């Protein structure tokens, strides 16, 4: 192995160790009972037990935060995928100024920092006298997720043979059948990656949720952690929760990657 290669490998692995140290730290600390992060009072699985049996003091709040996070992410990314796919088909068929205009608007939520998106939507809901809660959070999440769906579906449209849709009509499919049987399958990869992107962005969002959740006590995981940390001292059960979430993601991503690299090898 050349010196260059050794150096390169070392660089990458040091970076990875630094990147993962907080996560590993959380995972390690999930196996002790200590109240505050960083203390070690001996190995114990009690935090896992109390996470699942709801033995801690604000277990309901934590579990409902997890539930809200998943529900909001699911609804927002499903709606964003549908809205974004329809929009992408429309944008693809637009020309000139109109196309540029809508693509420009589509870029704004992606460039805007979360705080601007959050504050501006907060002002909108205040202005329209919409009481804030689930609905406003979901609408806000749809706002910043849909552009990513649009951008993931558009390339699939340009890769698609333009005659494929017409061929379906020609063979007797109604426009709706042609859409369902030919267009959607062709766009599916873009829709799926748009959906996954939306889902993860929604899961991870803090700022936008923070400004649009109102005062009804709606918490997602992010806002729960934020309030918890501001009160001083994190709920210990967050540690096993985060560890589990991380392991699930690790498993899913490794699975997807191994499968896709197998697929590319097979197609070669």
């Amino acid at each position, binding site marked *: 192995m050349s010196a260059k290669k050794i150096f*390169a490998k070392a660089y*990458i692995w040091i*970076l990875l160790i630094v*990147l993962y140290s907080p996560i590993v730290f959380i995972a390690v600390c999930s196996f002790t009972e200590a109240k505050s992060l960083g203390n070690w009072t001996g190995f114990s699985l009690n935090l896992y037990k109390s996470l699942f049996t709801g033995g801690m003091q604000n277990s309901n709040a934590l579990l409902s935060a997890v539930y809200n996070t998943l529900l909001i992410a699911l609804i927002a990314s499903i709606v964003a995928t549908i809205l974004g796919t329809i929009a992408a088909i429309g*944008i693809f068929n637009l020309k000139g100024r109109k196309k540029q205009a809508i693509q420009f608007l589509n870029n704004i939520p992606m460039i*805007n920092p979360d705080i601007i998106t959050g504050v501006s939507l907060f002002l909108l809901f205040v202005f329209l006298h919409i009481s804030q809660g689930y609905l406003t959070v979901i609408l806000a999440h749809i706002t910043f997720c849909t552009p990513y769906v649009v951008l993931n579906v558009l390339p699939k449209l340009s890769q698609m043979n333009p005659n494929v849709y017409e061929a379906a009509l020609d063979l007797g499919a109604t426009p709706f059948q042609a859409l369902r049987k030919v267009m959607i399958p062709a766009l599916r990869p873009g829709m799926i990656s748009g959906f996954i992107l939306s889902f993860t962005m929604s899961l991870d969002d803090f700022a936008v949720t923070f*400004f649009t959740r109102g005062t009804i006590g709606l918490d997602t995981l992010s806002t729960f952690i*934020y309030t918890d940390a501001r009160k001083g001292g994190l709920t210990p059960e967050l540690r096993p929760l985060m560890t589990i979430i991380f392991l699930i993601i690790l498993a899913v991503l490794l699975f997807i*990657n191994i499968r896709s690299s197998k697929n590319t090898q097979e197609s070669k």
Partner: protein
Amino acid sequence: MSKRSSWALPYFIFLVLFVVMPLVLIVVYSFQDASGHFTFSNITKFFMDKDSLSTFALSIEVAIENTALCILIGYPAAYILADKSLNRSAVTVVLFIMPMWVNALMRTLATAELFNMAGITLGKGTLLFGMCYDYLPFMIYPIYNVLNKMDKSYAEAAEDLGAKPLEVFTKVTLPLSMPGVASGILMVFMPTVSTFAISEFLTNNKIKLFGTIIQENINNSMWNYGAALSLIMLIIIAITTVLQGKDNSEAAAGGAI
């Protein structure tokens, strides 16, 4: 097929309602007092207030430093990852992106706790380190993407024409990878300049950034002043985007998988 273009209409209405209108409202609220009358006082208040101005300057400074740090650390990483002779595994790339899937606040809290345990006082140093840690993947991925798709024959052509390895890099690879760096800057600078929770955690509330003041004003029902501060940030964003000059949205879109 021309009727298909009308499919963009629902989304267009959605964008007007949830993107354009809210931004217009930021402008409107910025120039109103609490009772809804037109005023410049929110803007002048910002420029008269030393604390706000210094926070603003500090936020820009931190954002620039963080972005520079991310490029310095991220570019070599992206370069190594994209170089087939140094790294062949796609999994390594995924490993760099994966921390993004773990709740950012949780990761930040753990980082701060690690600093505490190591006996490092929370302050600007830890803030920069922590933010760099949070945003590094956003810098690595777009650069990696561009480098990975780059036609290898450019570098070979340069070598063939007599360029030394370092010259190949400075005269061909680096200039050609600038679009990736540009979209990395966009993806790191914008969020850092506006960050709020992360900076509070990493400095134990010692250092306030611009995002925090916006949040405090909005939360304390000082909507008009909060809107004015947001407007100032919007202008910074507009300037950065225009300076960038290019549409990097597509490189950004591929950011996840």
